[in-house]
């Protein structure tokens, strides 16, 4: 004990101990990261090695077939693309609007509290439940049938909470000075939101959209529930037509399949050749997901650069 009554400590010993602790934690972190990445890499690599040899133009432009050598995924990837289009068109505007309302407009009372808790919980509801809901409400209730529209709607419902929560988080993380500066300049609420808050929140919202759409593109259960076909030998009507008005929405009412369902179908067959096709379809699904995320990340990067 020194004169001050504090225990005399050797600074070097404390520093050495701190270094050891840091090193230990960094080591554990690295190990965990390595295991997780290695497993993921092995899975993807296995998929690519098995599937890649089957991917060619024929595979992408052929309909499914009973013979593995002639089977393709044309309706599946077109279906996935169209369903995602509907999902994005519904989930993005509704999700952002709902998040915006809850964060900026809604009065703080018990009703909004209940809504908030429910939205957070909705994100954890198993997707098959959404499938049942869609089957009961959209397919039978509204008589919309087993169509692309219903598939897009159910996936939009499924991922809506993700976008709502991301939007709210992004808005909440904007420093309150930005909000105050806009109001002090005489802006009304909508001007503040549209001119200053939404642009500042764009990177965060885009991250939410990436996560949401990536989840939607791989979903199978709710689509099986609403009755997606597992074998389909035709394409939905094209969205762009030769005659005026050049845009057609007939495809919304078309039966469909999507890549995960096509994969599931092939996996459940006994022949090994179909298993390889499933892997190939998996690679295509991965590429589609990565392309979608890449686009969103690029937009986010541009948005961030604008923000400086």
């Amino acid at each position: 004990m020194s004169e001050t009554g504090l225990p005399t400590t050797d600074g070097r010993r404390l520093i050495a101990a701190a270094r050891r602790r840091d090193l230990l934690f960094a080591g554990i972190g690295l190990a965990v990261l390595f295991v997780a990445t290695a497993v993921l890499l092995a899975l993807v690599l296995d998929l690519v090695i098995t599937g890649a040899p089957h991917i060619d133009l024929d595979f992408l432009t052929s309909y499914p077939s009973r013979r593995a050598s002639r089977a393709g995924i044309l309706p599946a990837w077109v279906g996935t693309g169209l369903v995602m289009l509907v999902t994005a068109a519904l989930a993005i505007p509704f999700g952002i609007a709902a998040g915006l309302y809850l964060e900026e407009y809604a009065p703080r009372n018990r009703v909004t509290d209940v809504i908030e808790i429910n939205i957070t919980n909705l994100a954890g509801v198993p997707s098959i439940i959404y499938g049942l809901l869609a089957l009961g409400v959209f397919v039978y209730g509204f008589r919309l049938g087993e169509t692309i529209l219903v598939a897009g709607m159910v996936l939009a419902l499924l991922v809506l909470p993700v976008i709502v929560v991301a939007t709210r988080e992004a808005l909440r993380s904007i420093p309150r000075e930005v909000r105050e500066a806009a109001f002090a300049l005489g802006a009304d609420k909508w001007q503040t939101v549209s001119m200053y808050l939404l642009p500042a929140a764009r990177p965060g919202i885009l991250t939410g959209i990436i996560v949401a759409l990536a989840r939607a593109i791989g979903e199978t259960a709710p689509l099986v529930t609403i009755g997606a076909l597992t074998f389909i030998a035709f394409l939905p009507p094209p969205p762009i037509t030769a005659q005026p008005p050049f845009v057609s929405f007939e495809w919304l009412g078309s039966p469909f399949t999507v890549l995960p369902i096509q994969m599931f179908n092939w996996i459940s067959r006994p022949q090994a050749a179909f298993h390889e096709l499933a892997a190939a379809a998996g690679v295509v699904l991965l590429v589609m997901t990565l392309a979608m995320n890449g686009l969103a990340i690029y937009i986010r990067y541009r948005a961030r650069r604008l923000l400086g």
Partner: protein
Amino acid sequence: MTLAAPLPAEPAPPSARPDEARPAEIRAKAAVEDLSFWYGPKQVLFSISMPVAEGCVTALIGPSGCGKSTFLRCFNRMHDLYPGNRYAGRILLEPEGIDIIGPKTDPMVPRMRIGMVFQKPNPFPKSIYENVAAGLRIRGVRSRTVLDAQVEKSLRRAALWEEVKDRLHASAHTLSGGQQQRLCIARALAPEPELLLLDEPTSALDPIATAHIEELIDELSRRYTIVVVTHNMQQAARISRFTAFFHLGRLIEFGPTEEVFTRPRETMTQDYITGRFG
């Protein structure tokens, strides 16, 4: 209206004697009458009455937590952005005598006429040009020529033009702290406010940037009515014509800066400006 007029006889603080040694031509831009303010259940301002002289700098001084910033933020209804706040009394904006905090007054009315600069530089995450043009865009100005002219004029008045004229479309975040604060001043000036509120505009800046801003405030006081909150007494003495001393939510003393600093009427003011507390 002369400065003496807006001060009510009752319940004026004992120290307020706004009649001495003041040229007659000074008029009130705003008159605060018996203003009280509550954050939820907690009262933080107590019956404050004082005028804001037109074309002058009025400094609000006092120790931390004395309510000077809270008082300033009443002028443009910033407290309305958060729930549970309550005002009582009146703040009359001259010449029409609109009651800024009146329940029937839309908060946008005073905000359209009163500019504000905040403690921390808070430029929008946009270009320099768009920051200055913000107030005009909010008011629906679309014409490129009007915007260009007003942006240049405001940047010149904020003494920033020479430094940024070649990179108007660069992000505002590329500017230094002092430049950002001058940008915020330019942004506040662009819509031609009648009254400019400065909330400790130099507290986040280094001494050189502070000197710049002080010079600027002096320059601006020829054209604008300014109310500035500062925790720096030398700054208040340097730049203001009138000084109000706040303590624990009460206005202790108000008068011409010279008098408040050389011959304060209240011992508390004396103690504060001589550094005995605060």
